[in-house]
């Protein structure tokens, strides 16, 4: 027990998390602190580029094997199964209507890139290495969730799902393309590429992450206020669903043979909820769904939960499981 408290404390007392808290505080005090949107977007592109590029470079250095393939399948599987679990829970415990339950659960099958990045920073603090292809797994955890969500919402009847603009949005969205593209470029250019890029992708990384988490704190603080409208049952879902996702991720990670760090990250991917890609895609594909329900949940509840509690928790649980195995 003291072990997990120590891990948590060390997590919370790191600069990125402290800046997140600063942002939260500023937002609750209704401060006029505000990162210009253009800069916020550029910073998020920076994180995508860095995380993708690093993952690619690491993959370049390691050999391709069956474990990689299994891991990718596990990611697809998780992304498709988690919305089903979420849907049932939402229908039963929170009595949400079909369309909105489907929409919300799609968010939880997908991922939050910033939570992933924060988790890699946390692993860095704990000197825990992880597989480079975790980034590729992350990239795969979007489409299945959205498609399952749409099938749940529209059931047998209904218009065809795969309109050209839907395909473009889900498979060629800026976020995904930049992540996969940077991953590919890292893979192609390998160590030589990293040498040329280190001054950009490594040197200022932690600082930029702090800046970005400050912004996330400001955003989260705003969304917190909207939770009340969503109701207590929904807010609770935002707390226990990541734990379920984290457990699924840990089991899958151990099953396909990921390292301890990699398993923690897969848990984080399963536990986190999308608040950028999925809501944007659903606004087009499922306009009947109410975005005022899902967004506060994913951003206002699940995101801070994972940042403060989830990440150290999944790390600790993975550690225990690996000791046991």
């Amino acid at each position: 027990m003291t072990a997990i408290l120590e891990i948590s404390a060390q997590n919370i007392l790191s600069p990125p998390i402290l800046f997140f808290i600063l942002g939260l505080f500023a937002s609750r005090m209704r401060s006029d602190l505000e990162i210009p949107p253009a800069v916020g977007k550029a910073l998020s592109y920076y994180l995508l580029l860095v995380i993708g590029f690093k993952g690619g470079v690491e993959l370049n250095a390691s050999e391709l094997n069956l474990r990689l393939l299994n891991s990718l399948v596990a990611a697809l599987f998780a992304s498709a199964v988690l919305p089903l679990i979420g849907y049932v829970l939402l229908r039963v415990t929170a009595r949400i209507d079909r369309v909105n339950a489907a929409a919300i659960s799609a968010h939880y099958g997908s991922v939050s890139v910033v939570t992933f990045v924060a988790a890699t920073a946390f692993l860095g603090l704990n000197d825990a290495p992880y597989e480079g292809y975790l980034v590729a797994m992350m990239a795969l955890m979007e489409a299945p969730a959205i498609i399952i969500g749409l099938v749940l919402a529209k059931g047998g009847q209904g218009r065809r799902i795969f309109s050209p603009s839907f395909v473009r949005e889900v498979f060629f969205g800026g976020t995904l393309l930049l992540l996969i593209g940077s991953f590919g470029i890292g893979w192609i250019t390998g160590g030589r590429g990293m040498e040329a890029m280190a001054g950009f992708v490594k040197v200022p990384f932690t600082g930029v992450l702090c800046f970005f988490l400050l912004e996330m704190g400001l955003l989260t603080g705003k969304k917190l206020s909207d939770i009340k409208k969503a109701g207590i049952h929904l807010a609770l879902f935002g707390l226990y669903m990541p734990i379920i996702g984290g457990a699924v991720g840990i089991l899958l990670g151990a099953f396909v043979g990921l390292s301890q760090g990699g398993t923690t990250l897969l848990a984080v991917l399963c536990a986190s909820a999308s608040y950028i890609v999925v809501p944007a895609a659903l606004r087009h594909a499922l306009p009947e769904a109410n975005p005022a329900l899902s967004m506060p949940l994913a951003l206002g509840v699940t995101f801070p939960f994972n940042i403060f509690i989830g990440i150290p928790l999944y790390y600790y649980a993975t550690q225990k499981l690996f000791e046991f195995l």
Partner: protein
Amino acid sequence: MDLKTAKCVVIITESAIKSDVLDFITTLGVKGYTIDTLCGRGERGIRDDDALLGDYLRNVKIEVVTTTELAEKIVFTVIEQFFKNYAGIAYMHDVQVVREDKFRP
């Protein structure tokens, strides 16, 4: 040169459907429009979200100067077509123009 009466149509709706609306009014015969991104508040809440979460969370305002006939058609069909599931308003007002032909569909 003389001043002629024409109509200015104003559509304010979610950025998410910007290109859908533009495509739609183009098929109605619109050849010119002016468009801007802004914020607002209405029945569907405040639309003023941080751009980090996506530009689709703010509003676009589309203005079209055209004939009365086409203006009415735009207002009626845009409301019917889009504003059941999406936030938005559409209205029109008289304006005086010089080069009337420029604003014919």
